């Protein structure tokens, strides 16, 4: 069975020479929820960009059986990216337009687009805000809206870059519930171990551009030595066993 | 600096709207073919930047209590190139009119030309001449300074010309022109200083922005440039000859000065039926409404009736609307 994401020996350096990713090899199966954890500057965001084909490096990145080098249009339909700042993702005058942007670019006709938008907005609980402009939404709503803009394209994989950033506890809980209810494969970069523990079943630890450990979330994140040696901590959920 | 509707006559407004629309339309068409669509969000966001930039103020020298702020047309032309900058500034002017009511709807044509098209192209042209492709520090700053002063001056000069062609204002052309030139020289200097300072900052932090990396390669064909120059020369010549022919304050001024010749024919006859009808209307109205030159009181009473009638109508509309709203509220609260 094809993996959702297959990365083989992928390396990338910025234009000024600094290495961002070193020989990354990672394999993620369909249906998994992966937390990509690591200290600041480890390369998590860069890796997510590589998965969506935004970066040209050495090595292969294969999404749902397609090589990103050369199949960009199909890859971008298969994998949806939620960027770190929802403001960057909500660039249309109304929420409806933003959520419709993806399906329209896929070439669907208006009635199909409207259907997809309605479904995606209902999924994230923002159906009532469809005709509102993005700056009318609260921080939590903007985050949910950003996810809706990706959901409407019916991707198989969704990557999220620090989705829990600057959310208050209530909104964070809503986000956790939303993500755990999704059926897609998820790759979530986050700096919050508690959030990772709440959402993910698999954890991949990154440091200095490398993937240093991959495995079941509970196993990886309860390893105190591993966590602290990479500038992280054991989530509350896994302290004292369970 | 933003022109209001009331300074223009309809023919001048229509003319400038046509010129502005034609210019912007042409630029959009050419740019769309050549520019990568990567630039689209950049243009929009830099337009928003212009708004934000106009909020950042600083103390002016020797003028306590007043502060200056940046206009941004020339900076944008240097960073984006003249064509993209012209589109961006035009969009800024449109939004200023529609959302902030800065400048009238009919004056959009004038405002786009005076503050967008002219400063961007004139400024960029001068900047290019001074820097001549070499991006050494001093040349950039001198070029930017010169570009700002001249570009803003040319834009400012157009305002009294457009107002004079409309003949609405009572100010003599020369006074208006001198005031605008004087004020905008200072404005241009300040703009130049702040533009140079920003460019200096960018040279340190993001030199790639100053080195023309953001502008696309849009080539207007030589023929288009030539034709545009020809059209502009004709317009300028017509305008200047009008002014030079002893009517410094426009067509209507001359009507006003001859109240004893109600059949005075307009000097420039117009084939266009709408404009000649408007002209006829204006010739007929030598006893100007609202006041009686010939002693008839009828005009005074009609205007009185008009105003009282309108006030009553407004009161009725207001009352009806508030009653309706109260009923609506009652209905919704009772369900």
């Amino acid at each position, binding site marked *: 069975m094809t993996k959702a994401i297959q990365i083989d020996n992928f390396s990338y350096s910025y234009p000024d020479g600094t290495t961002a990713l070193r020989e990354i090899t990672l394999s993620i199966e369909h249906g998994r929820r992966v937390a990509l954890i690591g200290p600041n500057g480890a390369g998590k965001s860069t890796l997510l960009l590589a998965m969506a084909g935004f970066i040209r490096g050495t090595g292969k990145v294969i999404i749902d059986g397609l090589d990103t080098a050369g199949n960009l249009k199909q890859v971008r339909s298969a994998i949806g990216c939620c960027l770190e700042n929802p403001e960057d993702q909500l660039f249309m005058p109304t929420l409806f337009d933003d959520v419709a*942007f993806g399906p329209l670019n896929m070439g669907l006709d208006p009635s199909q687009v*409207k259907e997809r938008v309605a479904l995606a907005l209902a999924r994230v609980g923002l159906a009532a805000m469809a005709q509102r402009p993005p700056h009318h939404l609260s921080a939590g709503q903007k985050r949910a809206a950003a996810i809706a803009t990706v959901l409407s394209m019916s991707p198989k994989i969704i990557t999220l870059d620090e989705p829990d950033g600057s959310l208050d506890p209530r909104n964070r809980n809503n986000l956790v519930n939303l993500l755990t209810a999704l059926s897609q494969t998820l790759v979530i970069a986050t700096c919050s171990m508690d959030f990772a523990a709440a959402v993910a079943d698999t954890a991949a630890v990154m440091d200095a551009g490398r993937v240093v450990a991959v495995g079941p979330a509970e196993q990886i994140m309860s390893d105190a030595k591993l966590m602290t040696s990479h500038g992280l901590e054991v989530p509350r959920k896994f302290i004292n066993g369970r | 600096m933003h022109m209001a509707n*009331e300074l223009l006559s309809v023919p001048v407004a229509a003319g400038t709207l046509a010129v502005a629309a034609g210019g912007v339309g042409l630029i959009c068409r050419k740019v769309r073919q050549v520019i990568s669509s990567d630039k689209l969000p950049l243009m929009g*966001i830099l337009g928003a930047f212009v708004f934000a930039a106009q909020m950042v103020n600083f103390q002016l020298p020797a003028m306590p209590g007043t502060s200056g702020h940046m206009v941004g047309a020339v900076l944008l032309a240097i960073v984006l190139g003249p064509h993209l900058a012209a589109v961006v500034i035009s969009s800024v002017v449109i939004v200023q009119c529609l959302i902030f009511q800065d400048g009238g709807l009919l004056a959009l044509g004038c405002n786009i030309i005076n503050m967008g098209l002219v400063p961007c192209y004139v400024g960029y042209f001068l900047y290019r001449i001074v820097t001549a492709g070499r991006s050494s520090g001093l040349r950039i700053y001198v070029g930017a300074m010169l570009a700002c002063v001249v570009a803003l001056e040319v834009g400012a000069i157009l305002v009294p010309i457009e107002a004079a062609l409309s003949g609405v204002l009572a100010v003599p052309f020369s006074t208006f022109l001198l005031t605008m030139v004087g004020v905008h020289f200072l404005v241009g200097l300040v703009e130049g200083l702040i533009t140079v300072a920003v460019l200096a900052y*960018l040279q340190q932090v993001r030199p790639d922005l100053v080195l023309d990396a953001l502008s696309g390669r849009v080539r207007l064909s030589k023929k288009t440039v030539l034709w545009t120059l020809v059209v502009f020369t004709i317009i300028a010549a017509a305008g200047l000859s009008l002014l030079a022919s002893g009517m410094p304050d426009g067509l209507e001024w001359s009507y006003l000065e001859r109240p004893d010749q109600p059949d005075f024919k307009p000097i420039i006859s117009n084939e266009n039926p709408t404009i000649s009808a408007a002209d006829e209307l204006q010739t007929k109205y030598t006893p100007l409404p609202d006041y009686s030159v010939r002693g008839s009181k009828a*005009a005074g009473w009609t205007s*009185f009736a008009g105003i009282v009638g309108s006030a009553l109508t407004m009161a009725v509309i207001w009352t009806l609307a508030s009653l309706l709203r109260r009923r609506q509220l009652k209905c919704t609260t009772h369900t």
Partner: protein
Amino acid sequence: MDACIAFAQKAVKMHHAYIDKFAYQDSPIHRLDARVKFIVTIVFTAVVISLPRTSVSILFCYAVGPFAVLVLGGVPIGFVLKHILFVSPFVLVLALTGPLYDKTAATVAFGPWAWQTTVGWLCCWGIAGKFVVTMLALIALVSTTRFEDLLAGLQRLGFPKLLVIQLSFLYRYIFLLIDSAQHILRARAARAVGRIGFRAGIRFAAAMLGSLLVRSVDTAERVNTAMRARGFDGNWRTINRLAVRGRDYVFVSAAAGFIFGLYLFVRPMLR
């Protein structure tokens, strides 16, 4: 200096709230097609501007039109008038040049009263009056129409697509950038200790502007990434949402009747 900042901030806050608040309400006016409202506003403005220079009372009659639209649209008139006052300084200055430069004597008859004044003053009132009336019309248009609907209408009326896309992005990110500018200004105010002089003032302002510019460019790159990630390939696709309905025809006929009916009313006053 700080007074200037406070004033500017207050001004922008007023605009901030104003732009959105009323356009998202619902009323018969709000439900009219954007194109129809736009064209009617332009024609209205053109007719008012073309009125004779010294016809002042007729302007009050013309004001009934936008007044009705505003009231039916649920927009508070007091707010609108305050806003008009706020944007009037430049026009008022130019209007006041009338009495300065034109001292031709004139007698004004108004109902049972009559008094002496100059043509210059009449022109002044004329300009001020036209300003208020055309502003009322413009505000009536903008506060009863959502900006995106207005843009869609303009595109259908023939605006270049690039300009419409540009306006769309501009509108979307204006609030964000204005907020960023306010943050920066607040940070500067927090660090300001007394007067700093012109040169230092310019240098600080330039640094703020420069960093705002760089931030804008970076934001634009991220937005572009987001667009590409959702499959954007250069073709801007939108769903058509405008439709001219029966009520639009009613509105157009009412407006035409009002505008041109009043114009004919002016003619008898001219004899």
